[in-house]
């Protein structure tokens, strides 16, 4: 039997996502100026600003020297020709 919930948070999914389809960003960061900029993970966000915020809060395992996000759709694959880039969680 389904459990009755007292109240349910109402979320406008379309607004949250900025569209009907989720939009993904890949997250890159470097620990200090001697380290490589590495892929650390991936977030879903409706726009660039929220992608920045989500990346910073989720991938907080280090005090990163530098962090950036790249929209997944901007990544052009070389070895995976013809496919969209694969998500490579860090």
């Amino acid at each position, binding site marked *: *039997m*389904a*459990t009755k*919930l*007292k*109240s*349910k*948070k109402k*979320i406008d*999914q379309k607004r*949250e996502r900025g569209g009907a389809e*989720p939009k993904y960003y890949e997250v890159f960061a470097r620990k200090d100026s001697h380290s490589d900029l590495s892929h*650390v*993970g*991936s*977030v*879903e966000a409706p726009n660039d600003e929220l992608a920045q915020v989500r990346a910073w*809060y*989720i*991938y*907080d*395992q280090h005090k990163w020297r530098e962090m950036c996000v790249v929209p997944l759709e901007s990544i052009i694959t070389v070895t995976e020709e013809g496919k969209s880039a*694969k*998500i*490579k*969680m*860090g």
Partner: protein
Amino acid sequence: MATAIKDIQEDPRERALQEKVATGYQLEDVEEMTERYKNVLVNTIHIAADLEVVTLPTYSPAIKTSPTLEDKIAIAAACQDELGHAQMMYRILEDFGYDTHSFLFERDPEEWRTFQMLEFPHEDYIESVVSMCYGDRAGYITTVDLEENCSYAPFARSLRKVNYEETFHVSHGERWTRFFWNQSEESRRRVQETVDFYFPLCTAWFGMPDNRKTRTDQLSYRIRGASNDEMRQKWLSRVVPFSESVGIKVPAHYDEEQGKYVLDYEPPIYLDEEKREWDYDRQITWEEQLKVWKKGSKHKVPSIARVISEEWGKDLW
């Protein structure tokens, strides 16, 4: 049923993938998977994500009752870590067609896959630190095994951060468990009482004994590397020496003859949920135990309902 399993075992694609991952091959893409591989992988990540989230209602009561601001921050920070872990798992699950919003907010709480160890809301800060010391240690052993062995590389990689953060929870737990053991008579009594409750819960975290287990896909597809008993042994080899060094009594010891840690009781045993007391002399059957696990404690549904309906608000502090 038996014939169905036999058929799949004889499916050359399934067999080929099992042999491939047995050599250490890691998959990077969903397209490389067989249906059966995908099912066992997704099931594993699904449960892992649920287990991360249920820590929130479990830990939150202790945020209110913990003695100092630092303690409150420590618990809140651990909760934030756990939700961050869930976020990464959701991100992976989306590649398999999961919708995070409906998965988190629209699922019936009874459908959540939780383990008994994480279902009892902490009554005080001592319970939180004991739970970090013994419970997060158990969780850590399973997630380290996944990081080291999981044949789906994106999941294995995502667990680096998870395990990095879990070590903080475990060392925080050990440090404060030791502190409260030495602080006063009363706090020592409370530590022992909490360990008495958590120890069997944590040994059960690793599931059925190997000789009772019927589903072995996690191992044959190398989603995990170690069996239930191997991981349980690893956990015992950490927590028993720790407890002995502090002076905490635990129902397990190292058996010289067998060369391994053994429990001083025969699981599964009866738990009085109301009193939070185990009856070490009252054995139940594995069928009864599975029923208890499946149903969940009385806290399970209200806790998850609370997460879903976001009733934290001003009550949080």
